[in-house]
């Protein structure tokens, strides 16, 4: 299921590029960061590692989109 979440995030980013709408990248980066935070909590709680933790790398993207979308 974790892989499913990662797939959803990637597809959302992808759709953003295809339809050329920044809102998709913005939302995808939000979900990625939330997921990364959650996976960090999981790691701290039970020690299970997930690649979702790398979602923090979406943080700059989030800031970039935020600026461009001016919200």
């Amino acid at each position, binding site marked *: 299921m974790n892989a*499913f979440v990662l797939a*959803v995030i990637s597809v959302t980013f992808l*759709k953003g590029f295809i339809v050329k709408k920044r809102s*998709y990248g913005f939302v995808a980066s939000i*979900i990625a960061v939330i*997921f990364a935070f959650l996976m960090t909590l999981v790691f701290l709680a*039970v020690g299970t590692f997930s690649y979702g933790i790398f979602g923090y790398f979406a943080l700059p993207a989030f800031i970039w989109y935020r600026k461009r979308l001016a*919200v």
Partner: protein
Amino acid sequence: MKIAMIGNPNVGKTALLNALTGGNFEVGNFPGTTVEKKEGKAKIDGKEILFVDLPGIYSLEAHSLDEKVAKDFLTKERPDLILNIVNASNLERNLYLTLQLVDFKIPMILVLNMIDEAEKRGIRIDAERLSKILGIPVIKTVAVKGIGIEELKREILRGGKVPRVEIEGNIIKTAEKIAKKVVRVEERRIDLTEILDDVFMDKHLGIPIFIAFMWMMFTFTFTVATPLTDLIDSAFSVLAEYVSSLNGIVFSLIGDGVIKGVGSVLVFLPNIAFLFVALSLLELSGYMPRAVYLMDKIMTTFGLTGRSVIPLIMGFGCNVPAVMATRSIEDDRVRIATLLVNPFISCSARLPIYVLFAGLFFPNAKTIVIMSLYAFGVAIALISALIFRKVLLRGEAEYIIELPPYRIPNWRDVWILTWNRTKHFLQKAGTVILGMSVVIWFLTNFPTSNIESSYAGTLGKLLQPIFAPMGWDWQFVLAILMGAVAKEVVVETLSILNTPISQIMTTSQALAFMVFSLLYMPCIATLATIKAEAGWKWSIFAVIYSFTVAYFVAFVVEVIARLI
């Protein structure tokens, strides 16, 4: 001085109550109803003031329970002052309620809350002019940030004014006219809500994103809460063991009965609290009504509406809060149907049963068997819902929900919501479990403390013939009987009895047993909640229906599995 707070849903009433009372308020119910009542006390300049937060409503025409409760409160309790809280972004619609309040001839103050959000959207309101038209003080506030609260307090001390408004034609037209006079909308840029809705309600991605969120909610509820669950579990078993090792029947009652029983429920407390945190986040962020829209089509196929989705999903955690969550469904028939099928959604307490039996009988296909049981529960729930709606609870569901703008939830609100709900769960489930643990303790310890010859053992043997078609031994019957209190007790009972499960049970019988445990009846705590939300009649119906379904399905499963 008694002050009633009244306004539409989503205007920030709770946040305002919080700001006015400094968080000193209690959540309860209006007498004889399940409508939530929040009440708080504050001292302003030495003056003792009682704030009563009425349910969020759009009108006072008394069509819904919430509206009736609010109206009754205004007519019977006659508060000294009404704080009419209004969402500044949506003045015209909110004024509809305001103009209905005029008839009560009670002094009023109009609170234009969330003024910051309105201004962000380019909406400017002329408060002075509005105050003149309505004849009452108008205060602009941002309750979550504490802006305007001091001014509001001063105005409260002045006592408000009885509104005088000329109604031209009807209320709707009047509201429209007033709004036209005082609201100015500037060209607004695309706001956050538009951007987020674009994606969250995307034709193809909307539902996958929803599923991703649900999965995250479950991970948070179950995985992240694990350390706390383990801690409570071990603390209680150590405590129970210590107390019951002391000599004397009283210590046995307290140790084996009370502490063990209460501990078995408290073990779920972290899960439930975490589930509530996640749900509060979804609710306060404004995402929930979007999920309703996304899932509506699928749910209508089964006679439910998008409204039923959240309670059903919560059922995977615990059916008690899930049944409580059905309150938000306006349509009574859909609400009852959702609530009745909820226990078929396999809650976390049933997992240990599957783990035990699937581990013994299907060591190579454990995960698949368990997943199938979960899916099977969902299927039975949806089919039952369809049957109920076609036979017992007929009629088209009508509903409308506003989509509020997205907001970043603030931690205080999340905490308040979570704490109140968790407390509610503890009170409800706690008292029932406490009583039942004493009963079980008695049944298993008398006339002898050997469980096989105790009342419980006798009862199990007595009832065994009923389950003879499935071929279960009396130990399993006893486990099911005990499990009626809380499903996790099934495993506990079998372990107390030292049942050699794999020697006295065939694979087909085990499969039937798992299916039966999944379906047979709501646990006592859930049943108590169903009774509170829907009445005796439906809770008895729930027991009979689920038992019949479970018995029949388990029998069929046993026969088919044996033939294969």
